[in-house]
């Protein structure tokens, strides 16, 4: 590939160019019931080493924002305006820029782990592909060794034997960790994580968050995190944007938002969402409730 890896790290302006800079991002979705403005003029910035969190009720536009940032919404059904600069390149204006940064500068941890992997390919094949895309010179065996290592990092038991297993042979929580491993395979500078711990039970959730934060400390990766859970948000975020109906109703440091919420909507979220670790009853198999219909 002839793509120039214009990453923030090797340009002179590395420190001043944010990894992610969204300005007045607007996303309209063309649906069966007409045009929905799912994201309505939001602006935010993620610098290296930072975690910025979007929080909000179901249907508030968090996933649409995340997918828009990566330009992964279906072309023709989603109309974007404003700008999203990833390491300086505007992916809204230039589809080529989006293709160039995906799987290199930025990777995604998707929201629903159950449908995020191809059911007819082994996880090893999919994780190995991700590794070999990033390192074109890598042999299959090398990819396998590296992949097994990544699976061990996200605490998949017996990663070597599980390499040849198919997605349906894993629980939702394990799939989510496999997807985290796959996202990390790209060695990205920016990680977009859409509810990365929602399918995990409390202990695994804590250890995955630990893993991500340790990774961030070690590599200075920037994170755009999406969560329902203010407990998680507070733990990991530098800044929090509270989202409702496609807009940010309140933005500020993690501490300000959690300790001194200004908006009644934020206070409701605080009251409604249990603290970290309070949802482990149904354990590993927990899957995300359907997003539809919850919007006010």
């Amino acid at each position: 590939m002839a793509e120039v890896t214009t990453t923030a790290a090797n340009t002179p302006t590395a420190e001043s160019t944010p990894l992610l800079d969204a300005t007045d991002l607007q996303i309209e979705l063309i649906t069966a019931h007409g045009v929905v403005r799912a994201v309505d003029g939001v602006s935010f910035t993620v610098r290296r080493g930072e975690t910025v969190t979007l929080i909000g009720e179901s249907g508030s536009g968090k996933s649409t924002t995340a997918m828009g940032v990566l330009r992964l919404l279906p072309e023709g059904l989603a109309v974007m305006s404003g700008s999203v600069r990833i390491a300086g390149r505007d992916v809204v204006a230039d589809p080529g820029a989006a293709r160039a940064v995906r799987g290199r500068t930025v990777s995604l941890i998707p929201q629903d782990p159950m449908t995020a992997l191809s059911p007819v390919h082994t996880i090893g094949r999919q994780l190995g592909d991700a590794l070999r895309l990033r390192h074109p010179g890598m042999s299959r065996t090398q990819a396998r060794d590296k992949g097994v290592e990544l699976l061990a990092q996200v605490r998949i038991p017996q990663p070597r034997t599980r390499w040849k297993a198919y997605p349906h042979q894993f629980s939702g929580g394990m799939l989510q960790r496999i997807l985290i491993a796959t996202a990390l395979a790209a060695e990205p500078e920016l990680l977009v994580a859409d509810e990365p711990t929602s399918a995990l039970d409390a202990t695994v959730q804590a250890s995955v968050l630990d893993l991500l934060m340790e990774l961030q400390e070690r590599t200075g990766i920037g994170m755009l995190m999406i969560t329902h859970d203010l407990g998680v948000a507070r733990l990991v975020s530098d800044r929090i944007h509270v989202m409702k109906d496609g807009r940010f109703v309140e933005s500020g440091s993690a501490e300000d938002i959690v300790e001194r919420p200004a908006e009644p909507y934020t206070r409701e979220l605080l009251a409604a969402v249990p603290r970290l670790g309070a949802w482990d009853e149904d354990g590993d198999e927990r899957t995300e409730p359907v997003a539809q219909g919850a919007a006010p």
Partner: protein
Amino acid sequence: MPTYLARRIGQSVLTVFLTLTTVFLLVRLAPGDPASAYAAPNATSADLARIREQFGLDDPLIVQYGLFLRDLFTGDLGTSYSFHSPALDVVLDRIPYTVTLAVSAIAVTTLVAVPLGVWMARRADTRRELGANVLTIAGQSMPDFWTGVMLLTVFAVVLPVLPASGFTSWSGLVLPTATVAVLQLALVSRLVRREMTTALASSYITVARSRGVRESALTWRYALANSAVPLVTALGTRFAALLNGVVVVEVVFGWPGVGSLVVRALETRDYPLIQATVLVTATLAILVQLLVDLAYPLLDPRVRLGKAA
């Protein structure tokens, strides 16, 4: 797996047997009399009775059926009334032609319909895709007789580049194949389009795209592999149907396959020949179906043989 296979083979044998029994009864219960088909125009009723006796048709139905079964288990399907040779041999002589045409038509269909369907899925709802779509619908709605005669007129009469009839060289395969493929093409490419459209809109494609997987790999590796089960099912069903013979195409092109044989057997009320044809084609079709079923777990790891699919 061995139990599954044993059960499936048992089911298959039973299916063929029931089909054969049904056909045995139906041809005899249907109005009409083979004796009059083979008697001289001025035959007396005594002549007819003698022919019936010779064909073993004067016995009660149950006795005929018993004798039929007894012979069946020794591999004897009787002597064809019109060919005067063992009915099974007559059919088996035709089988290579039918299989050749079926294999060739399915191969051409696959090689054209899969890329075409994929292309239509990728270009869904553009003007050119619409054009291709209309063409495939036209191909599907065109009677095979008409397609055959058109191709025959153009390539064997107007531009005499291909033989019009029979199978004397491999070029004789081209027009019958094309005629059969046009019909299959429409069905299969539209199926591929539908399956690929669904697959390409799946979440795992979007997620793979987020990893930097290229569009060509998303299409040909991820989406196509996920469409394999319905595709192989459709191709297997089409192939099995073609093994029963393609009557109209065989007649138009003078193709010496099972299809034209069936027509002749029915016209001449050649009971042993009808029965032998049914036995052979039903067995082949069921064999193909079995192979398709055995392929499922290879195509989709979630499928377990013997469990409800």
